[in-house]
Every structure is written in C-alpha cells, then in structure tokens.
C-alpha cells in the first residue's frame, strides 16, 4: 500500500469534528561503514511510521506507530485525540493556529530510481574503490557509503493530500596516514552514481599525507580559510539558533528585532532554496506547506527567519514551509536547504593568497552553542588543519578550538570562493532526513581560537 493511502486510512479513523493530520514516512536505507580499510558495520533499514496529530482548541496531541493494520491505526488516532482533549481541560486555548490549507507544491528532481534500488553490491564496490585508492598511497580509509529512499505522505482534514519521494546518497572518507594525521573529504547527491569514491578518497589522502612537520598555534585571533564543510557546519548552527522563527518570536534569536539591519558582511547572501542546483530538494514541509525559496540574509542585511505554523502565528505572519513536525517541533522550525552564494575567488588557494599567516580549516567537530543569543559556538578543527604562510598552505597544523560568534565570523568575511557544493550530513539520528548546505569556501578575519 502506498504511503498516501495509509495516511488517508489513518485520517479516516479520526472522529468527526476533530481537526487532524496523518503523516506517513517510509524509509528504506543502506549504510556501510569501514575503518582501517576494512568493512566494519552495515545497516539496512526497512521501516515506516504513521503519525496522527489531532488538534483541539489550539492544542496538538500526537501519536506514532509503525504498524499499519486497521486496529493499530485506530489506536494511534485515539491516543492523539485523547492527548489533545487532555489539554483542552485546562481551559486556555493552545498556541497552534490550525492546520494549513492545501497549496500546490512544485515538483523537483530529487528522486533517482537507481539509487532507490539500494544495491548492496554498489556499496561494496564503493568501499573497495576507497580501500584501493588509500592503499595506493599507503593510507588507511575510514568512512561510510550510504543511500536512502524516503517517501512522505500527508493527509489532513484541511484537505491536504500530498506525497513526496526523495533519494539521497553520501560518502565520506577519513584517510589516516602512517604518521597518524588524517584528512577528510565527502560528497552528497540525490543520485548515488554522482559519488566518486576514488576521487573522494584521493582528496582525503592528499590532506592526510601532506608533508612537513606539524606546527602549533596558540589561542588568539587568526585569519582563516574555511572549507565548505566548516562553513556548512557554522551555517547549520545559524539556522537553528538565529534563523529559527520560534527563537525569533521568543526574543532568543540574535535576529530578534534586527530584521532589516546589517548582521553580516555585505558579500554574504544566504537563502533557503529548496530547488537550488545540487541541493536535496523537498516538495513540502512537515505540515504540508509547499517549499519555496526564502532570502534570509541579502547583502549582509537580515531579511527573514523561517517559520512553521506555530511560530508564524506568534509573529503574526504566515508559515514559510519550514515545519519539522506537525503542530511545531519543540525546538521550532529550521531551514533545510541553506545556500550561501559564492564570491569571486577561484578556489581555496586563491582565498589563501592574501594571508600572511593564518589557518586553513577543513572541517569542525563537536560544535555546540555556548550562548545562543549571540550565536556563540565552540568546536574543534579536525581532519585537515594547515598553516597558511605568505599566501600558501605550507604544513600541517595541530588542531585548535574555535570559539566565536557565527554572525561575527560572517561579519568578517573577506571573500568567498566562486564554486559551491552540497555538504550533507551522515548522522541520521531517528528517521532518515537528509539535509545539506550548499556553501562555498570563505576567508574571514580575526576568528577567535581559545585553545
């Protein structure tokens, strides 16, 4: 049975007069892990979840099941309705304004039939290619290859009846040299055939096998070149901390009261663009609101934050199609297709050219918010940190801890590379929900390192 049919069957169990949405998410995925150029774990998932969200007087009650028989769907709905009604006894209306009405969603090219086949043999070949490429230079390959197919269907009493199929593929390699130094490279795409395991591995080993004695730098402020992986990590935090409409409404966002103000360097242009070339497109959000481009920062000026129905109601505006859960996720909405427009530098080498002494960062690790209102975060460089001297990357550098404001760094952007690429995530806690940031590399001045 197709997910939309299951969603409609679940919706049919909702009592008359109750506003409700049924969401079905079907996941099929395969993920192969490797370490020391040998396979270590492999996980294949075939699962589906049905979520019924019932609304009473602005209160949302939700129930989830991964069974699709009639009795399970009926029980799921009954739990959701009971939850919403339990809230009603409190007397005061809840914050949820009601379910969105149907709107046409545009199609996209985010589905690839061959990727959806999840051929284990293709994954095995990718691993072998990585092992071979690493072995040719005397390094060991660690990483993952993964592909997934997600179908999402929504049916609601407001009249939404929509479904969306997407695929994603991702491979990353952390190459480890005999010296113990490591290098990182990764690629994300809608279609698995776009991944090039040998090329990814070559980029990773190039960093791991870089020659020269390891330099060290103490705490302080340094000019940096951030590869797109590091840029994407910082932008993802900006999305959850500052571009989040709920945080904005509650005066917890760095952009609260600052829309229309300069918040970044004039060369910074950031948008959520669900159909931008190379991104992982999606037709609608978790409430069935169609995805559409949204300018967030234009020429360094804050223009918008993202909303779901709940945060939009708090701000007296309309949802921008960024709900992560029907009725509003506890942490609020978030952008899922961030795009930072590139600049005029040809590549990372060109970004380094003006730096007398600085730091080249491949990626950041274990980034966490320190003071969300300031977008102050901390994290450690990893898998490819180098010293820049007299305009060139000269030798490996011991990893450092970056502790700085994301908006502050964006305010000190001096240049961006012309080319951008999608940087995805492989974490997939809970249901697989592939997102990514399309970002260039950039150079920024006076970035603060605390260790």
């Amino acid at each position, binding site marked *: 049975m197709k997910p939309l049919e299951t969603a409609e069957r679940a919706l049919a169990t909702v009592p008359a007069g109750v506003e409700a949405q049924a969401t079905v998410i079907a996941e099929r995925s395969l993920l192969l892990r490797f370490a020391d150029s040998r396979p270590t774990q492999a*996980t294949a998932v075939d699962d589906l979840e049905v979520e019924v969200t019932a609304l009473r007087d602005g209160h949302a009650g939700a129930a989830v*099941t*991964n069974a699709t028989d009639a009795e399970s769907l009926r029980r799921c709905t009954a739990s959701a309705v009971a939850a919403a009604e339990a809230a009603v006894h409190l007397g005061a209306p809840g914050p949820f304004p009601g379910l969105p009405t149907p709107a046409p969603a545009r199609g996209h090219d985010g589905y690839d039939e061959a990727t959806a086949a999840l051929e284990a043999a293709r994954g095995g070949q990718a691993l072998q290619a990585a092992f071979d490429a690493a072995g040719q230079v005397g390094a060991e390959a660690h990483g993952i290859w993964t592909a997934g197919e997600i179908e999402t269907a929504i049916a609601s009493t407001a009249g939404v009846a929509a479904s969306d199929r997407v695929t994603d593929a991702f491979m990353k390699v952390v190459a480890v040299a005999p010296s113990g130094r490591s290098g990182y490279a990764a690629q994300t795409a809608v279609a698995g055939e776009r991944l090039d395991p040998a090329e990814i591995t070559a980029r990773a080993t190039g960093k791991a096998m870089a020659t020269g004695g390891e330099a060290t730098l103490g705490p302080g402020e340094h000019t940096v070149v951030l590869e797109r992986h590091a840029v994407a990590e910082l932008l993802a935090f900006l999305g959850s901390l500052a571009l989040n409409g709920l945080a904005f409404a509650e005066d917890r966002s760095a952009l609260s*009261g600052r829309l229309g103000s300069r918040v970044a360097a004039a060369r910074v242009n950031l948008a959520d663009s669900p159909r931008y070339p190379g991104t992982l497109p999606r037709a609608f959000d978790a409430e069935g609101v169609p995805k559409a481009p949204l300018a967030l920062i234009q020429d360094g000026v804050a223009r918008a934050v993202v909303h779901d129905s709940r945060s939009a109601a708090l701000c007296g505006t309309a949802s921008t199609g960024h709900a992560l859960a029907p009725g509003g996720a506890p942490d609020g909405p978030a952008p899922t297709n961030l795009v930072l427009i590139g600049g005029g530098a040809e590549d990372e080498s060109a970004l380094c050219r003006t730096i007398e002494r600085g730091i080249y960062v491949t990626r950041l690790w274990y980034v966490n918010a320190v003071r969300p209102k300031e977008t102050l975060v901390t994290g450690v460089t990893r898998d490819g940190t180098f010293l820049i001297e007299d305009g060139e990357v000269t030798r490996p550098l011991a990893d450092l801890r970056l502790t700085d404001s994301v908006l502050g760094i964006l305010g000190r952007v001096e240049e961006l590379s012309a080319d951008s690429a999608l940087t995805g995530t492989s974490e997939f806690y809970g249901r697989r929900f592939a997102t990514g940031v399309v970002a260039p590399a950039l150079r920024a001045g006076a970035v603060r390192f605390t260790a």
Partner: protein
Amino acid sequence: MDALLADLMDSASGHADYADVRHVRSTTERVGTRNGAVDRIERSDEQGVGVRVRVRGAWGFAAVRGAERAGAEAALSRALEVARAQPRGPAFPLADNAPAVGTHDAGLDGTDPFAVSLEDKLDALLAADAAMRVDPLVAVTEAGFFAHREERTFASTDGALCRQRLGECGGGITATATDGAETQVRSHPASFRGQVSQAGYEHFAGLELAAHAPRAGAEAAALLSAPPCPDGRTTLVLDGEQLALQLHESVGHAVELDRVLGSETSYAGGSFVAPGDVGSLRYGSPLMNVTADATVSGGLGSFRWDDEGVSAQALPIVRDGVLRGFLSSRESAARVGMDRSGGCMRASGFARQPLVRMTNVNLESGDAGSLDDLIASTDSGIYMETNRSWSIDSHRLQFQFATELAREIRDGELGRLYRNPSYAGITPEFWGGLDAVCSRSEWRLWSVLNCGKGEPGQAIRASHGTAPARFRDVRVGVA
C-alpha cells in the same frame, strides 16, 4: 516470539559464522508545556526485528518493522546479502560468553507512568511552568515529562534466548530569561530534558518540579545582571550534574574499546587512550576511581544482558587514578586479548545494531563530606552548576564546558553569582587536579539523555553516579 527468533537463528546458522536477532517493542510518552500552555503531547508505539550476521569477517544488519515471520526472514536474507556484498576483511574472533537465557525486569516497580492520566501529568507540569514566572525577565518557561517502556527479546546462534523488560520515567523544567541583549537559563534538576531513571512514576513526582520552579526562574533572571565569570586559573568545584557530563565526555567515551581500536574514526573519533595503557596510564589523581556498572539499580545503563547477550558487569575503569579497563564488546575484547566482553553492547531500538556504549560510568564517592563541607574547606575558587554547553576533541583530550550558573568561593563560603561560566582543560591534567570528592551521602545517578554515536546515528540514555568534587588549577572563563 521466542519460537520465531529461535527458528530464525536455526536458519542463520547454515549461512553465517555468527548471527543474533533482537525483537524490540517499545512505548514512549513525552508531555511538554511551554509558557503556560501545552506544547506537545506525543505517544509512540513501535516494534520490529533487527538481525545481525557475520559472514567471512563482514557484518551485515537488517531491520524490519513488525513481528511477522515473513518480515523477519526477509531481514535475515537482506542482512546476509549486505554482509556478502562487502569486501573481504579479517575475521576477528569473538570473545566467549555463556549464552544468555532467562528473563529480567527493571524499572517496573511502583506506579506505571502510562497508567497515570495525562491530566494529572499536565497539572504537575503546568504548576511548575507557572511557578517559574517569578520575574518579568523570564521569557520562556518549559516543563517536560518522559516515560519509556521497552521489551527486548534476544537470540543468537550461540544458543542465547532471553527477554528483558525495562521502564524509565522522569522530567525537568527550564526557565529562560532575556533582557534583549542576552539570554540566561536555569534548569532543574538537570539541563537538556531533565532527570530520568529506571523507575516508575514516583521518580517523576519526587523531582518536585513546582517546588524548585521559583528558584529556577529567579536565578535565570538574576544571572542577566550578574558579572561575567572571571578568566584565569583557579580552584573549581563542580556539582554532580556537570561532573556527570565531564565524566561522560572525558572518561566514558575515551575508554570505549571500539574508539580505542580506531573503528569509530569516521564519526565519533578515536581516543587518546591506547590498548596497552591498562595498568600504566595515569588518568587522574589517586582520588579518581571510576566504575562502569551495568548492575546498579535505577541507572539508564542498567540491564541483565547487553545487546550481544553478555551478562551485565561492574567493570573497574580507573583505580587510584590509573587506567584499569575498557568498555568492550565480544569482538573488541578479543582483539586486545581480553578473556571476555565487558558487556557494553547497546542498540537504540530494533533498527540499529549494537555498538560499544556506556553503561553507568560512575565516579566513586570520596570522603569530603557534603557539598557544604567541600565549599567550607575551599579558600577561594569558583563553584559551577548545571551543564549548558559541551565540546571535546575527537580524541577526548581537549574539552571546553559551560554551565548555567557559577558562584564565587571565598574563605569557605559561596559568594556572588557569575554569568556565562565556562572552563577548559586537557583530560589527564584536569583529572590529575582532582583533590576532593564528596561522600556517599552526596552521590547520586545523573542521567545523560542524548548520547550520540554510530552511523546511522544512535541516541542512547545512560546514567553516571557522581558526587560534587573539587579540581585544582583549572582554566576558567574561556568563552
């Protein structure tokens, strides 16, 4: 279910060097309030089967929802297909263990949290939510309830067949104050979704959220006008909650044997600890004694058998400041020559395969008396309480933490409030500065509810037993 899993293992034994299977059925309930209104009420019911096989050294794992025989057999076929499709690798042996047989229940005593009405839970949460709004600067108030019940049935080609039923319950509150320029947060009894135990509803009721709510709200507001935490090196006293996360990040993860052996390099990272460091690595001062105890009552890392069917154990990790052991699996234990697994394989749900995870990694109590006694014996320094932010490098060596609140310690007494406290250090140096741990009367289990590891990601819950402790010469005010 027993027959289905046993039959499946019979089928697997002809095709795999080793196989195991778990059927997991779980129910979870989350109730949250925000700013005096119901934020979200969610109940989740799921069940499924996960089959793990090893063929010529390569592991394959496949998960399918439900408990149907056809689905479970399809999962076995898929797991075999996936294992066979991978490049050949070395077939590391598995450490021997006695097959797990029997049943076990924990956390099911007392009142079933699912039998308590939603209205009662909401009343308790909304009372706490309202009681936090003691100051106009308090902008956001949140209160939450959590309950989870899980039944896990495990079988293997080694002859294991066991079933465990585990229950968890808890909650917490958070007040966020803002003056437009910055935000300050206070939580009770712990940050990031509160305190959860393997227990019934009485544990949640015993948290007394409404009673602590006015203090949380008042402290959040007061922090906005407090002076910033000074920077420099000083004596640091940590409360048990922050110390639990310090232990988790700089000890628990560092002694996971899969990380030590490089198997987690692609994501979670490695460790500064080497396999040969047992018995020689000085991890901290002689007051540092750490035990990974999966047998302690109430812990979120407690069970009778791990997800490889290995019996729960209390493992010495650090004794008198010296490394004494690792968290391990059957494969990782055998790779370093250990006789048996430490029984630390855990999986989150049926759709993830087990990984080496923390059980309850505890810092043993000392003899410094109560927290008041510890403060009284400290001439000068800073006291920090309740985690707000954490970060550590991929080898678990260089860390930086921030807490919600700090107070000056002067002449044996707590003094003025500081906002935005933080501290940083290097793991063995930091633990080397440990010079006092409070006594058993102050020792309790603290929950960590969002421990992430693995690809695809797995978030598990664990507990850490700690008592407040004092560390000398720590760098503070770093962020």
